[in-house]
């Protein structure tokens, strides 16, 4: 990682031939590198990871030096009939409510602190089937997470470095992560390369289906209590202005995971033993996995009324999954401050070599899973968002912090409908309230 962090700035100042060679080399190396997100958000989208603000773009004069506070909330609901807890034939009904607060605090003209705090409250009919008693304790849970980041622009402000750390906790799963990032923009702001690395240390309490617990205790399974997982992520993003109206970013993210990769309360039923109670085994998957996604993002300013945002991702891993994902979004500026943005996403993937449906695995196999997340399917997502961000904000109000006046800057609403060819359907409504405070 340190070697990558010290990549010379000269990539952007080489002669044309050498620069093209460098770009070609970067493209060739892209799958072997991975994970820096040239995102203007303070953290990765899931809240973890280091801040990676992009210096190539000018600071927003409306909030320069101001503390930014975002309050986000979503409601998610899904239903299907391939729940992995019951061996690929049970309910998949689940709801999830996720309040989140994101803080972005400038410490001075060069450095920033960020924090991402939130929780998930989920209710799952599927996990309620871990035992044979439908009850409140196993039907819902909370996951809490907190992530913090620090970033600093180095001299000239073309380079930003950042570090971060965070944790999350739920009933049977805790996780700690640390991260570091580096981003460098060319002098003219037309190119940027960013790198980031992140390591997760996770610990899971092994909760198995009730009918299988007695056998495991009798046999003295060494994994009966707790188990761990480590994930090492490396991300690289190269962004490039192509014209006055078109720009692109190519990104890749190498991931290696070690440790517990199966879910101990997922049942698998075998064709030799049938589907009677007590005949299942818990899911078994290898203890290492390597993922190789590569993405291309394009944005095009078609007209003052409509812009186009596109994304394509190719994904491959050593579980045998190959996937293609396409996304398109067309923001329509109804007025300069009111934007409607319809979007569409298509995803298709092959099945993992360890997946088979209910009663189709053989007891002789070493690894087995009936989790339909690992099955072959296609999925469509369609939705609509709206953003209202008047130049002077929606409202102003006094805060308890020395009476300072905060501005309710913008409102973002979004709804997405998702359907898989497995029969799973889901809907998600989200809201983002953005505030600034001097």
């Amino acid at each position, binding site marked *: 990682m340190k070697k990558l962090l010290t990549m010379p700035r000269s990539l952007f100042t080489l002669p044309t031939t050498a620069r093209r060679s460098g770009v070609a080399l970067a493209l060739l190396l892209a799958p072997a590198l991975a994970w820096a997100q040239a995102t203007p958000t303070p953290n990765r*989208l899931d809240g973890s990871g280091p801040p990676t603000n992009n210096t190539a773009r000018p600071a927003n004069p409306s909030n320069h030096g101001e503390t930014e506070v975002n309050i986000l909330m979503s409601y998610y609901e899904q239903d299907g009939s391939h729940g992995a807890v019951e061996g690929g034939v049970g309910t998949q009904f689940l709801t999830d409510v996720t309040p989140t607060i994101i803080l972005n605090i400038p410490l001075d003209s060069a450095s920033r602190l960020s924090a991402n705090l939130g929780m998930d409250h989920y209710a799952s009919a599927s996990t309620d089937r871990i035992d044979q008693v439908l009850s409140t304790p196993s039907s819902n849970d909370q996951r809490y997470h907190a992530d913090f980041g620090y970033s600093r622009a180095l001299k000239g402000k073309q380079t930003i470095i950042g570090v971060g750390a965070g944790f999350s906790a739920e009933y049977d799963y805790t996780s700690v992560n640390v991260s570091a990032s580096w981003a460098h923009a060319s002098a003219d*702001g037309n190119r940027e390369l960013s790198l980031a690395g992140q390591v997760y240390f996770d610990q899971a309490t092994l909760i198995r289906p009730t009918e299988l617990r007695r056998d495991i205790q009798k046999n003295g399974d060494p994994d009966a209590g707790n188990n761990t997982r480590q994930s090492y992520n490396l991300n690289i993003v190269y962004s490039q202005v*192509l014209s006055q109206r078109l720009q692109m970013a190519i*990104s890749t993210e190498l991931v290696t995971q070690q440790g517990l990769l199966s879910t101990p309360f997922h049942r698998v039923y075998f064709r030799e033993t049938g589907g009677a109670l007590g005949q299942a085994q818990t899911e078994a998957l290898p203890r290492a996995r390597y993922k190789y996604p590569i993405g291309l*993002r394009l944005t095009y300013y078609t007209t003052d009324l409509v*812009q186009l945002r596109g994304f394509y991702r190719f994904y491959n891993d050593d579980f045998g999954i190959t996937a293609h994902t396409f996304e398109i979004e067309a923001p329509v500026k109804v007025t300069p401050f009111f934007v409607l943005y319809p979007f569409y996403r298509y995803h298709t993937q092959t099945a993992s070599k360890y997946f088979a449906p209910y009663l189709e695995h053989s007891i002789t196999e070493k690894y087995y899973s009936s989790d339909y997340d690992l099955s072959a399917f296609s999925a469509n997502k369609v939705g609509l968002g709206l953003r209202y961000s008047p130049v002077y904000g929606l409202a102003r109000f006094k805060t308890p912090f020395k009476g300072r006046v905060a501005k309710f800057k913008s409102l973002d609403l979004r709804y997405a409908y998702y359907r898989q060819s497995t029969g799973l359907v889901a809907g998600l409504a989200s809201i983002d309230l953005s505030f600034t405070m001097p």
Partner: protein
Amino acid sequence: MALLGLMTLATGGSLSSCVSVAAYQKMYLNDEDMKLANKRIETYETNFESYREGAGGANGGKVGGGCGCN
């Protein structure tokens, strides 16, 4: 793989033909909707997709660690 190759070729071609755009010419590129990243509000969608699909990553969402997901 063919698609990946095509994408790489297309990107390479674009890079070799890109022009230098001065700061004062970036009024379109600096538009809020031209950002080369997901919107903050998309957080939850990228998260649930990473849970419900065997594939993930390279888009700023979860890709491994921190949850019992794939």
